[in-house]
C-alpha cells in the first residue's frame, strides 16, 4: 500500500501541515484580532494577545471614517472582474491557436510572452504613464484595467494553452470530419470540455488582477471615487493617527466576497490542476 503511513509519519505530516497553515493564516488571524479591539488596546505595553472587551465596533465605525469604503470594495471587484473578462476574451482564442495551429514564430512569440512576465509592472510604470496619458485614459477605470489586462494575457495564454493541449485531438478531428468549422468546434466541443481549465485560468487572472491593481491605482488614478480597496485603505491613515482596527476590519470585509467565491470554486481548482494527469 502506497498510502499507508506509520503513526510517526502521520504525526510528522500533520506537524508540517500545521506549521504551513500557521504561516499562511496567522496574518489573517492577527488582522481579525486587531479588528476586534478598541484602538488603544493595540498600543498597550506589554502586548496582550487577549483583550477582555472584544467588539465589532470597528466594523461599524469604518463606514463612517471612510465613507466611500463600500464604493472602494465594489471598485476592486469591478476592476478585477473587468480585467478577468477582457483577459479571457483575448486569451481563449490565443491559447487555442497556440495549442492547435502551426504558424511561423510560434515558439519565439511564446518565449517573448514568458519574457514579458518577468517584468513587474513597476519597471514599466513611467512608460505606461505616458502611454495612458497620450490615450487620455488617466484617472479613469480604464487606466487600471488596460495595464492589468496587458500584464495578465501572457500568463493566461501559458496556463490555458497547456490545458487545451490535453483535450484529445481526435475530438476535434471528429468534429472537422463532420463538417464543423474551427469556431464551431471551439464553441461546442473544446470550450465545454475546458471549463475546469477556464475556471483555473479565470481565478488565476482574477487573483493577479486583484493583487496588481494597487500599483496601477496609486500611479494612474487620482479620482477618489474610482479607487479600488487597496488604495482606499490609505484613507484610514489620518493626520493624527492610524485607525488600525478599522483598517483591518475593512481589509477583511473587502477580501471576504472573493474568499467566498473561491470556496465554491475550490473543487474546480483542484480538479483543473490535476486533470489529464492520469489517463482515464
Amino acid at each position, binding site marked *: 500500500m502506497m498510502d499507508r503511513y506509520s503513526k510517526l509519519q502521520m504525526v510528522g505530516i500533520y506537524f508540517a501541515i500545521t506549521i504551513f497553515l500557521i504561516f499562511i493564516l496567522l496574518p489573517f488571524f492577527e488582522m481579525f484580532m486587531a479588528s476586534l479591539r478598541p484602538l488603544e488596546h493595540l498600543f498597550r505595553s506589554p502586548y496582550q494577545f487577549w483583550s477582555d472587551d472584544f467588539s465589532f465596533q470597528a466594523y461599524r465605525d469604518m463606514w463612517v471614517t471612510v465613507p466611500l469604503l463600500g464604493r472602494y470594495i465594489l471598485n476592486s471587484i469591478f476592476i478585477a472582474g473587468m480585467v478577468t473578462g477582457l483577459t479571457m476574451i483575448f486569451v481563449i482564442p490565443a491559447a487555442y491557436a497556440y495549442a492547435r495551429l502551426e504558424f511561423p514564430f510560434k515558439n519565439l512569440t511564446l518565449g517573448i510572452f514568458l519574457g514579458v512576465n518577468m517584468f513587474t509592472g513597476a519597471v514599466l510604470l513611467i512608460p505606461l504613464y505616458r502611454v495612458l496619458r497620450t490615450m487620455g485614459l488617466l484617472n479613469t477605470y480604464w487606466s487600471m484595467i488596460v495595464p492589468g489586462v496587458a500584464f495578465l494575457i501572457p500568463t493566461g495564454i501559458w496556463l490555458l494553452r497547456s490545458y487545451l493541449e490535453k483535450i*484529445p485531438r481526435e475530438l476535434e*478531428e*471528429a*468534429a472537422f470530419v*463532420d*463538417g*464543423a468549422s474551427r469556431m464551431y468546434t471551439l464553441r461546442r466541443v473544446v470550450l465545454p470540455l475546458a471549463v475546469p481549465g477556464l475556471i483555473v485560468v479565470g481565478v488565476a487572472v482574477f487573483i493577479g488582477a486583484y493583487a496588481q491593481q494597487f500599483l496601477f491605482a496609486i500611479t494612474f488614478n487620482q479620482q477618489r471615487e474610482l479607487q479600488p480597496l487597496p488604495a482606499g485603505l490609505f484613507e484610514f491613515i489620518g493626520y493624527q493617527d492610524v485607525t488600525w482596527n478599522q483598517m483591518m476590519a475593512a481589509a477583511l470585509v473587502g477580501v471576504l466576497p472573493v474568499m467566498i467565491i473561491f470556496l465554491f470554486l475550490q473543487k474546480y481548482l483542484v480538479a483543473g490542476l490535476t486533470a489529464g494527469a492520469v489517463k482515464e
Partner: protein
Amino acid sequence: MATLDLLSISKSFGAAKVLHDISLAINDKEFVVFVGPSGCGKSTLLRIIAGLEESTSGQIMIGGDDVSDAHPVDRGISMVFQSYALYPHLSVYENIAFPLRVQKLSQQDMDTRVQRAADILQLTDKLQLKPGQLSGGQRQRVAIGRSIVRNPKIFLFDEPLSNLDAALRGDMRVELSQLHRSLDATMVYVTHDQVEAMTMADRIVVLNGGRVEQFGTPMELYHHPKTKFVASFIGQPNMNLVPATVTGADATGLGVELPGGCQMTLPVEARTVAVGDKVEVGMRPEHVHLGKAGLEINVNVLERLGGVSITYGTAADGTRFCASLPGDARIDEGAPITLGAAPEDCHVFDKSGDVLRRRSAPALVA
C-alpha cells in the same frame, strides 16, 4: 454509395516517406480492410482518404470525382475513430446529432434520423445518457451512429475495435459485418489484426513499409500470397518458413532439400530459380501432419486446446516450426516428431521474398 480510387498516393513527413505511390481501386459497396503491422502507413492512408491529412502527391477519386482537395464533408465520407472520439459533455442523442446540427437540419428531420440510427444500433433507450455511462461496446455504437446519420458515401473505420476486450471484439465484428450488409455502403476499415481482416473483408489490402504488398480477397491472400510478408502475416498461427536448397527444376515442379535431408518435389513455377539456389518453403501449421518421412523437429512447447494441439518446436538447424495437429495427437514436450505436408500445400519464396506461383493451388473461393 460510391467507388473509391486512389491514384499513386504518396506521403512524406519531412524526409521520411511513409507512403510510396499507392494505387487502389475499391468497388462500390465493398468492405475493404487495410491491414499491416504498426507503422506501415495504414492509418495515414485512411486519414488521407478522410481529408484529415494531405497527400504529398496523388489523387483521390470518390464516385469518379476528384476530391483530393475537398473538405471531408464534401467528400461524402464519415469516420469512426479508434478512441471513439465521443464528446463527453454531450448526451448520446447530441453526439449522434452533432453532424446534423452542423448542417443546421430542422429538429424534426434530426429526430427522425437520430431515431433511425439508434434503431439500427439498438441505442434507443440510451439516447439521454452521457458517453461516460455507457460500456465500451455501446460507446463504439454511438460513434458508428454519429457516422451513419449523415448518409455518407464511404465509411472509414480506424481500428475501431482495438479498445474492446476480446469477447466484445468478436461480437462487434459480427455487428459490423451485419451493418455493412444492411447499409449496403462502401467501407474502408483499418486494423492490425489479421483475424478482423480475414473475417470481415470482401478484399484486403496488406500494407508493409508504406507499400501495398497485395490486394485481394481473404482466400486469395491465404492461398496465393504474393510475398513472404503476406504469407506470414495472414493466417493464425503464422506460416512456417523453412530454408531449403533447390535440387532440381523441371516440368513436374521444383525439387528442394529441407534441413535434415528430406527431399520434396513441389508443384510450383520454377523459372526464376536455378539448382543450388536458397529458397524458403512455407508451410501453414494447419497443413502439417504427423508422418514417417519429413521434417524432424524437437517439440518445445505443446498447447492442447482440445480440438487441436498447437505444437512449437525447432528443426535440426534451429528453424522454429509450428504445427497445428489433432487434439489427441500422441506427442510429448521434449520428444522429437516427424512432420510432413502435402507438396501442393507448400509455398516457395525466392531470395527476394517473392512467391513462386503454385500450379495446383486450391480453387479460389470468391
